[in-house]
């Protein structure tokens, strides 16, 4: 790429980014300046479908979300290594392919393990509660 094209591209990228930011600023401030103001008795309360808000909104939520975050970090970082392989697939040749195959199968094994321990199930099907698992069997015996 020659100098003129390079300079033109740098300038257009810069102007593009500045224009996007300017557009955002304009939209946020313009509506803040133009909008009306109204006052109401129960206006300054969080929306909870019309009932009086109960308790703080910054409450605890399910641990499953942390699990998803951890799985994301693990698998996304490992996917990044595959990006490097995908771009250089012809340079690394069959040696690279063998390495990538081993890597992908380790990833798949990890995924199957996560799936088997129930990490991917949003609602675990069988909670490990021995007495409940055995209950139906006992009832069957009683019926017989």
């Amino acid at each position, binding site marked *: 790429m020659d100098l003129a094209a390079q300079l033109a591209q740098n300038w257009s990228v810069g102007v593009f*980014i500045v224009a996007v930011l300017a557009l955002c600023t304009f*939209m946020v401030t313009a509506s803040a300046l133009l909008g*009306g103001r109204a006052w109401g008795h129960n206006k300054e309360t*969080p929306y909870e479908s019309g009932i009086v808000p109960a308790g703080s909104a910054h409450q605890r939520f399910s641990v499953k979300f942390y699990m998803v975050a951890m799985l994301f970090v693990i698998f996304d970082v490992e996917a990044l290594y595959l990006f490097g392989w995908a771009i250089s697939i012809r340079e690394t040749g069959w040696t690279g392919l063998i390495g990538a195959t081993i890597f992908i199968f380790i990833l798949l094994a990890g*995924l199957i393990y996560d799936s088997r321990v129930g990490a991917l*199930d949003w609602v675990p099907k069988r909670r490990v509660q021995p007495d409940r698992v055995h209950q139906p069997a006992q009832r069957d015996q009683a019926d017989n």
Partner: protein
Amino acid sequence: MSWMSTDVLLAITVGVLKAIVILLAAVLSGAFLTVIERRLLGLWQDRYGPNRVGIFGSGQLIADMIKIFFKEDWIPPFADRKLFVLAPAIAFASLLLSFLVIPITPGWGVADLNIGILFFFAMAGINVYAVLFGGYASANKYALIGAMRASAQTLSYEVFIGLSLMGVVAMTGSFNMRDIVNGQEGLWYIVPQFFGFLTFLIAGVAVTHRAPFDQPEAEQEIADGYHVEYSSMKFGMFFIGEYVGIVLVSALLTTLFMGGWHGPLLPPIVWFLLKTSFFVMLFVLARAALPRPRYDRVMQFGWKFCLPLTLINLLVTGVVVLLTA
């Protein structure tokens, strides 16, 4: 050659003007899509949709813009002010910035980045923060739950959005979007990379929170999800940002799998616009036709089906590329 010479300045001016035209086209197509979608949904549901303002409802967008700009811009006193204002700006800007890397025709396109696809991944990653900040800063239970759902879903689908495109990258040997389009002159990548196409389409729908992956905004369960406390143009930015995301994902699908501007007879720009609008219509049709699956099913589908599929697809692509090299 001095860099202050006339032809250099001319090249810079033309480049900058092109960049601004592309930006405006992206924003306007996102904005017009808000009307077009309602109109199409209406027609597909045997009603008219918005048809009162202007000829066949063509003035609806202007009416909506005027209305939304003059709405009260309410920042809840219980909200975290800075994050609350920042969130819609991120939602709007991050996907709009991704238009930098899209080559529209041989002569049009803002940047010819060697890391083209990676830039899109980065921007899609930043987009998660918009939802998270918006939901957290609103200090509202619906918003918090919606934001948690949205970020968990987006993260789950971003794991394989990259892997689904690596087949294309492996076949081209480049992250550069222009090289990818040029690599499809003979055969569009949708044929050899069909599973990559499918998974990228699914992930693209999920990342833009569109139906059938719109659990973050499931109105029956959590009112409106992460933007329930937003009003005025701040809501509008989330709203238009979503449509900009649709246009972006459609343009990416066109560029990466459908041969970009390549096509017989018609000029390149027409082919690009035709293919992109086809995918945009597909997005709207999906919303009109498909029911919303349960949240746990969505998460399981991503992790247990799509992620292994993309991994195996990449591996098979690698073998084929090496065999044919």
